[in-house]
């Protein structure tokens, strides 16, 4: 379980994550939604110790992420950041191989090679394997970084807007893959999504953030209603039932 207690981040007196205490489960798909600037990335960055907290703590399976050995955390928790810019000259396969670093420290074992192959296949990257990461389209690069996180093969997988830049087939492909990782491999997937309908269809739980605090938290059926969504996003929604899934429309 991941537990945050009173997690807080402040930039120049603006509180962007405000005393957040939340528990994320051992398994399943949890989507984090909310408007731009709500504090989603900041929360995920603190949970994954990439960003220091100003107050509060985070525990992953009881390990304090800010003080436990970084490598121990890296074996349990991986993160895909929102930012996928990269200047280094590295091939797609090498990027994915870096995902094995916490386990192998640079010396790939047979198991590593197998996990890397698997991740590349999952993300449909076979034909780009040997290409430089800087020679890919935005969506292809996004998939390469998702593959890197998958190769890390951690119990907790945090993904900040993994569907960025992806076309519909690949977006749906990634969501199906994440669902399968949760169901078949017992992983806990926590992902930030702007497409609330993917959140509705694929997650076990939706956590909504607004101005640095969690304003709604529950199963998709309880969050996916016009009232709640309107409070989260300050705009009009209509929610319809489509073959048992709640689908929100917000185009007008």
């Amino acid at each position, binding site marked *: 379980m991941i537990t945050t207690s009173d997690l807080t981040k402040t930039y120049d007196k603006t509180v962007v994550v405000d005393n957040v205490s939340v528990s994320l489960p051992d398994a399943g798909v949890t989507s984090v939604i909310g408007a731009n600037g709500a504090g989603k990335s900041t929360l995920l960055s603190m949970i994954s110790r990439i960003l220091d907290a100003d107050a509060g703590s985070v525990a992953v399976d009881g390990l304090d992420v800010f003080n436990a050995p*970084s490598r121990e955390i890296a074996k349990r928790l991986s993160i895909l950041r929102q930012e996928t810019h990269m200047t*280094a000259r*590295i091939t797609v396969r090498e990027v994915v191989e870096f*995902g094995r670093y*916490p386990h192998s420290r640079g*010396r790939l074992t047979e198991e590593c090679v197998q996990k890397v192959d698997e991740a590349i296949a999952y993300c449909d990257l076979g034909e780009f394997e040997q290409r430089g990461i800087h020679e890919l389209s935005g969506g292809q690069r996004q998939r390469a970084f998702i593959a890197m996180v998958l190769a890390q093969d951690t119990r907790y997988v945090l993904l900040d807007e993994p569907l960025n830049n992806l076309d519909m087939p690949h977006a749906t492909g990634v969501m199906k893959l994440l669902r399968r990782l949760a169901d078949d491999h017992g992983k806990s997937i926590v992902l930030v999504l702007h497409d609330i309908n993917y959140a509705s269809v694929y997650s076990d739980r939706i956590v909504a953030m607004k101005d640095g605090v969690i304003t709604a938290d529950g199963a998709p059926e309880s969050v996916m209603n016009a009232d709640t969504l309107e409070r989260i996003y300050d705009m009009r929604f209509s929610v319809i039932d489509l073959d048992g899934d709640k689908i929100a429309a917000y185009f007008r």
Partner: protein
Amino acid sequence: MRRPSVLIGALSLLAIGAAALFLTWGVDGHWDFALPRRAQQVAALVVVGTAIAVSTVIFQTITRNRILTPSIMGFDALYVLLATSVVFFLGSATAAAIPPLTMFLIRAALLMVAATLLFRAVLGNGKRGLYTLVLVGVIAGTFFSSLTSFMFRVMDPNEYDALLSDLFASFNAIDTTLLGIATVLLAVGIGAAYWLGPQLDVLTLGRDRAVALGINYQRTLTKLLLVIALLVSVSTALVGPISFLGLLVANLAYQLTRTYRHAVNLTVAALLAVLALIAGQALLQHVLHFNGTLSAIINLVGGVYFILLLVKESKK
């Protein structure tokens, strides 16, 4: 990717060839006189080239750019300042009583402590922009040199003379008394650099991704800065500051290897540096009989290259 082993093999052969040329060119029978002297020079050039190349590649990885070098950021100016301060505060009589070897170790230790503390603060969480760093480097370098020359002014002329000849070694007046200890320290530094190679590889991805992959960023940064300071001490003690050699060989190495792997890049950059120094010195000293111009030429070529890189970067 090209085969790194082929590249490393070819460069090694070239370096050995250059060394053979340097040792034997125009000796005219005075072998017992010339050979030991020249062998010492070659050894010193190997040590200096390797130290500069390795420290530069490491520094460029932790600052994630290909323009800055320890020298441009003021590491060797800091070495000179610290060395001067020791004499300044102890007084020349006390300082003169310290054996050169001990003195060198004191200076190296001081640089390792001072540079590591300073640059840990300057680099922060690894997100400072290139131009901030360039600016800090220029200011730091100028500040260290001004402080040094201030101390020189205040010192009495005898102290000053002794210190000057001691401090400003050059390619033509290589300080060979320190060669043994410098070689030992170089071995330690290189060992540490290769040992930290996989962590350096991960740092290529940037601070955040490295942390996500389990690197303890602050601790790794400290270790790497210590290695850099150790290597800068070695090269500065032997031949004095050379600003732009590291820049040239590191960039040439990246062009040739086209990989992020430090085991390869460190080796190729070191071989290039050694080759450039030995071949350059052989040509200047034995063929053209121009003495004392090697660092001037390196700085001229490297300086022009530095400006080209800056211009290219600013167009991005």
